């Protein structure tokens, strides 16, 4: 009888980087489709520009670093970064905005630190923050969602706007764009209109139908569905999204109960903006997130609290990107203090 013996490791890893990245990208598809349905051609332009610029930047930098280009491009990590970035950017972002964000994400946040696995910060969120800080005005250019408007601007209108900055005849960009619900509630609060008043006003009530806002709730629900599939497949860790969602619900509930007129409900926070995209696709990035089981609870909860704090009291429309980067900074420290006990070792 022949006993086969082979050198260790004996347990074969079921999943590699390429498969993992592409499963995350597949899980993004339903949310992306709904985003296209509600916001129109702009989302597709964002995706096209971001993917081509990200892959090109990655190739150029790898060439400069004298690394092999094809195996790295083929692992899908740059593609995933591009998709997340494109979904986070506003639907009517001009081409140069998407380009600057993509270059910052891949060149600065990823490759300057040494490439996949060495980057301390989530590349997509760094790219987003660079343009958020630099061009706050352009970052508010979301299309009026389908359901509020009769339909989104057609292909040529969007194309002319994104690539040439030309608006349709006798119109400004404001006539086809609209603030996001989170942004709108914040600006209305600054003008002393409370949340209930804004949600039921004749001007804006169409935007606030359903749980959190026309369009946004379905996008979030579909990202949630994709995310649950990812967790089930074991690609994304379940602790981070759970901790994130619980923390966000907990803190928003406290403030909403305390003062319902100036604080939005937990449901609104859960299903608007980039909440679900963040919870399952951005926060769970295995490179930049915390790696210990207890650490992941702290990491996710930290993001949830920070998102709420920045949304409510910060100057920017959504707090996802800043919350992620702040917790990325804290992740090594969290890991240091939450090392699991070594089997047979002493209690600490």
């Amino acid at each position, binding site marked *: 009888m022949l006993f086969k013996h082979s050198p260790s490791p004996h347990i074969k890893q079921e999943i590699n980087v390429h498969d993992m990245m592409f499963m995350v990208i597949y899980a993004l598809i339903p949310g992306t489709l709904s985003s296209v349905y509600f916001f129109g051609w702009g989302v597709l332009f964002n995706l096209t520009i971001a993917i081509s610029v990200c892959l090109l930047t990655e190739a150029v930098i790898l060439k400069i670093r004298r690394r092999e280009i094809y195996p790295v491009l083929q692992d899908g990590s740059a593609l995933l970064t591009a998709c997340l970035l494109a979904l986070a950017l506003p639907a009517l972002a001009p081409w140069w905005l998407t380009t*600057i964000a993509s270059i910052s994400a891949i060149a600065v946040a990823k490759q300057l630190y040494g490439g996949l696995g060495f980057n301390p910060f989530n590349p997509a969120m760094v790219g987003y923050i660079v343009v958020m*800080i*630099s*061009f706050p005005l352009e970052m508010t250019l979301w299309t009026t969602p389908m359901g509020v408007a009769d339909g989104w601007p057609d292909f040529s209108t969007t194309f002319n706007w994104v690539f040439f900055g030309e608006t349709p005849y006798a119109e400004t960009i404001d006539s086809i764009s609209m603030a996001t619900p989170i942004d709108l509630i914040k600006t209305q609060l600054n003008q002393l209109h409370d949340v209930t008043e804004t949600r039921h006003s004749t001007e804006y009530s169409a935007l606030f139908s359903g749980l959190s806002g026309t369009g946004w709730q379905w996008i979030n629900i579909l990202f949630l569905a994709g995310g649950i599939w990812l967790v089930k497949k074991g690609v994304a860790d379940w602790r981070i999204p759970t901790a994130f969602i619980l923390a966000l619900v907990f803190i928003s509930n406290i403030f909403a109960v305390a003062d319902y007129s100036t604080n939005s409900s937990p449901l609104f926070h859960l299903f608007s903006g980039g909440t679900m995209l963040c919870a399952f696709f951005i926060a769970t990035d295995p490179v930049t997130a915390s790696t210990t089981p207890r650490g992941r609870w702290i990491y996710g909860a930290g993001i949830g609290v920070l998102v709420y704090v920045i949304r409510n009291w910060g100057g920017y429309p959504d707090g996802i990107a800043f919350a992620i980067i702040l917790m990325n900074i804290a992740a090594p420290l969290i890991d240091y203090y939450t090392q699991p006990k070594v089997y047979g070792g002493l209690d600490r």
Partner: protein
Amino acid sequence: MTDNITTPLTRTAAISKDGLWTNNVALVQLLGLCPLLAVTGTVINGLGLGIATMMTLVLSNSIVSLIRPWLKSEIRIPIFVLVIASIVTTIELIMNAWFHDLYLVLGIFIPLIVTNCSIIARAEAFASKNNLLDSAMDGFMMGLGFTLVLVVLGGMRELIGLGTLFANAQLMFGSIGESMTLTISEDYPGFLLAVLPPGAFIGLGLLIALKNIIDKRQTSRQQVVSITSAEATAS
């Protein structure tokens, strides 16, 4: 490192190379980063603070070098601080009198030159051990190296952030300066990140990286030369 070089010319060359490149205050010693990062929003701000720092370095190095026979080593640091503080106060008054607008723009960072570690570092490491001429030269070259980095970083940030170069040059050059401003494009949207503090950190990081690349290229080239010459002698 300059002790064993005797001829004045080679000494000057060594001091210059040390100050401008191999021991550059901003790129290698990483001293005085606070003003470096805070005021380099434009070329003119960088140039103004750079020149003020350079003058402080020349004067403090000269004075420390002159008084070194009487310095008690136990109290040398307080003496250095006193000397530097007096010089900075003088420069602050001079700028207030003759470059008042620039003085207002640079604000707190002029008095803060006192706390620029590079000045006390040069007094301790160089001026207290060398003669007047060498010390003044060292102060000048260290200051010039610092100023160059300030100007280059200011230029990068101004060009990317605001799309101009030499804006507000009238603060330093009077009415002639008004025509010095170069505008790249009238409708440049402005890249705010470059003007904000993160832009300063990223810019400085890129400059340091560039210097390291050049140094690395140079050493590898020298190695190639020495290897080929060694082969030549061996054969």
